[in-house]
């Protein structure tokens, strides 16, 4: 009871203050709400604009490449190489080894191709591959797996960034 009275007393004593205080609180709450609404709106807009065009991972630097090509004609080839993507020239340099032929031999391979990529495809030379990207670090794909049917051959390529 004593406690209640004390509270009642305080209520009376600070009624005026409480009114001012509550007015201030309401004003601050409204201001905060307005800010929150505008901020969330801006954030939502930013998110929707980000969600619009899908991000395109960059292919840049050196990757360990594994390439398997199987052909209906019976020919096949396998390439393991260092693939270096140069973003300034749009060129891909391959330096490694190719196993092919009958009998199978392992030979050195050096090749330069033009390249480009989108969120879903990678184009190497004239061949368009459907791609799935792995982890992207600083906008650069650290891993990707791609496949293409270029009759009479099917080609699968895996790339892992150095």
């Amino acid at each position: 009871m004593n406690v209640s009275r004390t509270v009642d007393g305080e209520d009376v004593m600070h009624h005026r203050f409480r009114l001012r205080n509550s007015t201030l609180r309401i004003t601050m709450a409204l201001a905060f709400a307005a800010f929150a609404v505008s901020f969330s709106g801006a954030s939502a807009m930013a998110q929707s604009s980000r969600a619009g065009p899908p991000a395109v991972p960059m292919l840049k630097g050196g990757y360990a490449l594994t390439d398997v090509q199987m052909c209906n004609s019976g020919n096949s080839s396998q390439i393991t190489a260092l693939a270096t993507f140069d973003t300034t020239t749009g060129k891909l340099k391959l330096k490694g080894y190719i196993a092919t032929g009958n009998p199978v031999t392992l030979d050195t391979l050096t090749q330069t191709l033009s390249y480009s990529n989108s969120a879903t495809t990678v184009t190497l030379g004239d061949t368009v591959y459907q791609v799935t990207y792995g982890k992207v670090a600083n906008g650069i794909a650290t891993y990707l797996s791609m496949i293409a049917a270029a009759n009479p051959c099917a080609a699968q390529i895996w790339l892992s960034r150095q």
Partner: protein
Amino acid sequence: MFDRTHKRFTYVTLAGTIAFAIAGAAPVHAENQDVPQLSGTYVFNATQNCLPSTGDLESLTGTMTFDPSTGKMKLFEYITSGNPLTLQKGKGTDIFSNSASTFTLDSTTFQAFYGKLAKGVATSFSFIGVVGDGCALQVSLTLQ
């Protein structure tokens, strides 16, 4: 006076020892940097193409666990091969070693390319070579 001199001598000697140790360790360190270490368990995908010779094409998936202290690799794999195609399970242990550009399994040396290194350990690598009676074996591995 003696203490100061002694301390200075000690400092000089200590600095010299550290410098010598660093200089001595540098080439070894550089050498270690050049050769990625294979350590731990890697998930692998492989294709063994014997179409030109035996007409067989094998796809392999599994794990390879490398122990650099023993130089041994433990293999666990599934293999599709044959006509009609069958799925078989396999396991084994092999001796391995590697250089900056090659990977050797038992007595067969493959050409290797490494992905990113983490504390000197290859987080991924690929190798290729000709094995047996004219089969091309190509393997791609990723550290777990």
